[in-house]
């Protein structure tokens, strides 16, 4: 729980750092990231050589943002296992030799496995960069701009506000539990219900008070959030360059091209 709290704080801190990437319009970043991920996803399962150049965009953006690439890798432990588990079967079922390197045959399965894993890493790098350089409320504002229903945006922001509060409350309770239950790794069976149940009951009172606080300040079904930074020329340039790069990588297999220049 403490680690989760630390991560919460860490994400917030990264998001308000100062860099050219941080200053970009949230909507532009969201769009570029989504397009990037779609392009990565759309690569054929054997087109490893075509996919590799896609790595350049996130690497470059990480450099620009001042966030170290390695910060996103601890996230891999959540994303990668399922990808790995699925990918690992490919070499077994797909044994057709595609080419040989130094006498060792490389099967299609191995290529598709590596491609899949690379895709996983690339998508994660891009998503992480987005969330690490954009405060959550700006992302929500951008979502509202693309006509995500207001109710959902409000709910997102309200929940985001209380995620920290509730995590802290549960962290304190976890500490209190472990102080009286030395040696236990988790919450024991007899307390399964009451542990979270207590928090739920209390949170209902909290929600009631919250609602009162909204009503007392004239709430009538509308939340007004601060307008986001206008879409400027630097955002247009950023978007145009990014998309041009994605298109180029998608259409021209740079890996193949480069390789064939040396392998002749």
């Amino acid at each position: 729980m403490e680690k989760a709290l630390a991560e919460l704080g860490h994400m917030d801190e990264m998001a308000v750092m100062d860099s050219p990437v941080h200053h970009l319009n949230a909507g532009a970043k969201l769009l570029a990231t989504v397009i990037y991920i779609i392009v990565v996803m759309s690569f054929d399962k054997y087109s490893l050589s075509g996919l590799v150049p896609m790595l350049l965009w996130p690497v470059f953006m990480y450099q620009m943002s001042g966030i170290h690439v390695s910060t996103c890798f601890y996230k891999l432990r959540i994303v990668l296992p399922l990808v790995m588990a699925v990918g690992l079967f490919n070499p077994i079922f797909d044994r057709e030799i595609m080419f040989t390197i130094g006498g060792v045959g490389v099967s299609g399965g191995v290529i598709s496995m590596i491609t899949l894993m690379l895709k996983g890493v690339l998508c994660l790098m891009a998503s992480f960069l987005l969330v690490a350089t954009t405060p959550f409320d700006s992302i929500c504002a951008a979502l509202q701009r693309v006509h995500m229903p207001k109710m959902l945006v409000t709910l997102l922001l309200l929940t985001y506000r209380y995620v920290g509060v509730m995590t802290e409350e549960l962290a304190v309770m976890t500490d209190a539990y472990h102080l009286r239950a030395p040696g236990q790794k988790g919450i024991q069976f007899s307390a399964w219900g009451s542990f979270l149940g207590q928090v739920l009951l209390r949170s209902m009172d909290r929600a009631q008070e919250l609602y009162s606080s909204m009503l007392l300040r004239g709430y009538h079904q509308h939340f007004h959030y601060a307008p986001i930074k206008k879409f400027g020329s630097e955002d247009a340039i950023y978007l145009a360059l990014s998309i041009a790069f994605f298109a180029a990588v998608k259409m021209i297999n740079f890996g193949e091209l480069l390789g064939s220049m040396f392998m002749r």
Partner: protein
Amino acid sequence: MIEFEHVSFEYEKGKAVIDDMSFSIDKGESVGLIGANGAGKSTIMKLLLGLATGSGRISIDGTDVNSENLSKIRKKMGFVLQNSDNQMFMPTVYEDMMFAPLNYMVSREDAEKRVDAILKSLDLEELKYKYNHKISGGEKRMAAIATILAMEPEIILMDEPTSALDPYNRRIVINTIKGLEQTKIITSHDLDMILDTCERVILISKGKVIADGPADKILSDKELLEKHRMELPLGKQ
């Protein structure tokens, strides 16, 4: 300005939380509402704000507190909750302060001017774009007060404004309260703070008004205070 006439309230039948209570508060007064846990302090606040409805008559500036007049009444009153986290539900201090003015149809420019002026007067300018979940307890309390001031209320209600604050932040809050010209009703167990900020005290117990008078007088009545589970404030010992 505020009239309580024979007000009663019960959550469960036969268990009156507020029992035939009457008092009135004039414009510009600052009143400390004191009493033991469960005496009915919070309920009085709720009744006043129309969050609960009892019997009898409550009026503010001659307007009855009832479901028809709610928005009119609530616009005049600002309530500073004890738990600032529940008070401040918007992402940033700025957006939280803008919440009420925007709801009351103040234009964004005017509301922003108002917010800036209040932050400046409370010396909180650096908090403006901070996230509500990233500021300290003391800052949170001050920001919650600023949020309420942004409503430009005529009456300010405060529930335990100094709870869980360190002496330094407590002093800041006390000085801020002293600087407010609005009518104030403050509930607290921090009797020193009440002594410091209020000229009048209403002592309640079991839903009844036990004593009502100058703060100086009631808060130096050792016997009365101890009978109702309180102690003399340090300033009077």
